[in-house]
């Protein structure tokens, strides 16, 4: 199962061992030869990002202009009302949906960081019977398609009376079901010098104190990565929110967008695109703030962005 780690990683500190970017341009002539490549890449980048830019600009256009066949990025008339209309276009205003999304994300982050780091500490540092077997089981659950557990889980949550609440989306996170993060944290803890534990042990510290005073604080970089990816995944998660939440007051941002599409449909593209643009904003802000952690998280573990 070691192949689960991206082959680019050589342990948790792989990020620290990045080679400094080598300056391979040896002469001006080489630089000149690279101009076509530069142009090609720049054109490619523009084409990649163009739909998103188009969406952002169309969110400010009147409907008639959006589909006038013009691919212009600059609106001829700015229609800021799209945002106000979109924000209040459903039975609840969008602040409800953002709040719901953020509550679920925050709880998921808290649950993942706490319980996955606890399990990771046990796997990385403590001795217990059949540790290798349990570890293999844990790795095996990482790639499990969620459909395999979907129907019984739904029935279970239904029997518990949890359907149409945030509980099915958050309680499992407090039981370390996102095993991926256990794996991430185990890798990181293995890179923390064992001498620190041993010194504390000599001083009479038990596992609980070692975990709270040494491992958890030193795990911080990995915890940050875990928090970022938990937030992105939870915020983007549509499927489980779709099946578990039916009350509009409990809707998250993706569910609200879906409802917007269903109710106003083809009649209010401006407000629809305005809310779509806004819904991407938290992700873009996270990316701008945590670009280094995100890039490192992906290149060392293959985390799905």
């Amino acid at each position, binding site marked *: 199962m070691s192949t689960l780690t991206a082959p*680019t990683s050589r342990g948790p500190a792989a990020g620290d061992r990045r080679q400094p970017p080598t300056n391979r341009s040896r002469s001006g002539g080489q630089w000149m030869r690279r101009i076509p490549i*530069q142009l090609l890449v720049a054109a490619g980048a523009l084409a990649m990002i163009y739909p998103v830019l188009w969406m952002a600009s169309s969110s400010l256009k009147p409907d008639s202009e959006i589909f006038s066949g013009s691919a212009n990025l600059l609106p001829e008339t700015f229609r800021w009302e799209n945002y106000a209309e979109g924000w209040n276009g459903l039975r609840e205003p969008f602040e409800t949906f953002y709040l719901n999304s953020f509550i679920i994300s925050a709880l998921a982050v808290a649950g993942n960081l706490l319980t996955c780091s606890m399990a990771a500490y*046990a796997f990385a540092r403590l001795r217990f019977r059949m540790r290798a077997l349990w570890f293999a089981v844990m790795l095996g659950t990482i790639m499990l398609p969620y459909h395999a557990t979907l*129907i019984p889980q739904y029935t279970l949550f239904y029997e518990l009376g949890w359907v149409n609440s945030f509980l099915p989306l958050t309680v499992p996170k407090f039981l370390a079901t996102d095993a991926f993060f256990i794996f991430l944290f185990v890798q990181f803890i293995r890179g923390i010098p064992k001498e620190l534990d041993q010194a504390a042990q000599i001083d009479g510290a038990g596992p609980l104190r070692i975990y709270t*005073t040494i491992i958890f604080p030193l795990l911080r970089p990995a915890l940050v990565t875990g928090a970022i990816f938990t937030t992105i995944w939870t915020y983007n998660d549509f499927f489980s929110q779709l099946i578990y939440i039916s009350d509009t007051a409990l809707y998250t941002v993706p569910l609200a967008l879906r409802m917007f599409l269903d109710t106003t449909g083809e009649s209010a593209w401006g407000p629809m695109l305005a809310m779509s643009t806004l819904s991407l904003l938290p*992700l873009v802000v996270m990316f701008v703030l945590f670009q280094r952690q*995100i890039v490192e998280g992906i290149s060392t573990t293959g985390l799905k*962005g």
Partner: protein
Amino acid sequence: MSSLTEERRRMPAPALRQPSPPHSHRRRALAPYLFLSPWLIGLLVFVMGPMAASLYLSMTDYNFLQDPNFIGVDNFVRMFTSDPRYLSSVVVTATYVLVSVPLQLVFALALAMLLDRAIAGIAIYRAVFYLPSLIGTSVAVAVLWRTVFGSDGLVNAALGAIGIDTTHSWVGNPDTALMTIIALNVWTFGSPMIIFLAGLRQIPRSYYEAAEVDGAGHVRRFLSITIPLLTPIVFFNFILQTIYAFQAFVPAYIVSNGQGGPADSTLFYTLYLYQQGFANFDMGYASAMAWVLLVVIAAITGINFLLSRYWVFYADGDR
């Protein structure tokens, strides 16, 4: 760290310490299970239990309202003999995986190699190319896709600009709807690209310099150095993206209003599973579909691991 040193200061000197009482040994032995307990409970209640239950349900006619009746392998027989929509969902999903994953990886590798050529502004390009991966599974982007590939969307506007006037609705036509969703997956090549970039950075420069001295050209260096040394990463990306692709849901759901249309052309496996389970409440059948998906993904992953012996090259020779 500061808390550790404080902790130490408060501790009595080792010589003065009493030998630990026997009960602390028992506490030590219990400690691992204490730390593991949330995960163990979660494993039992949310993973192992439901997996076993769904295996059982797959052999029943469970419909959520009544108690399940055991019907043996009827669900599985039905899938492959009397459910044309199921078979078409298999074809749609297989096409999606087989076309979009290789294309996505080709783009990822090509762009990684271009960016690795110490291009100016690599950080900005990396960010721009990665952004679609970050937002690609969101509802907003699926909505955008519907608009862009609609009859008067951006794609037709671009075609009009180069002289091809058309009002073809790419998402509305059964022949092209799946293609738009494949394009969406290819568009999110940024995350494998980042993994490729990290891999390229680890290939020692000296290999290329030595090959250059020996007179190897660009193509030769690419085929004899880059590709072999990159095979573990190609393999890793391929396994991951294949597993993800099999489970694609959001774009198909949004682009087709949850119906998989037009004419079932975007009826992805997961979408059909959702319809059977949560629209028709045919949950026994949905469980059977889920288990087939699980077995297929596991088998494909297993086969890929076996095949990897013949083409994946590990430089350190430890596998």
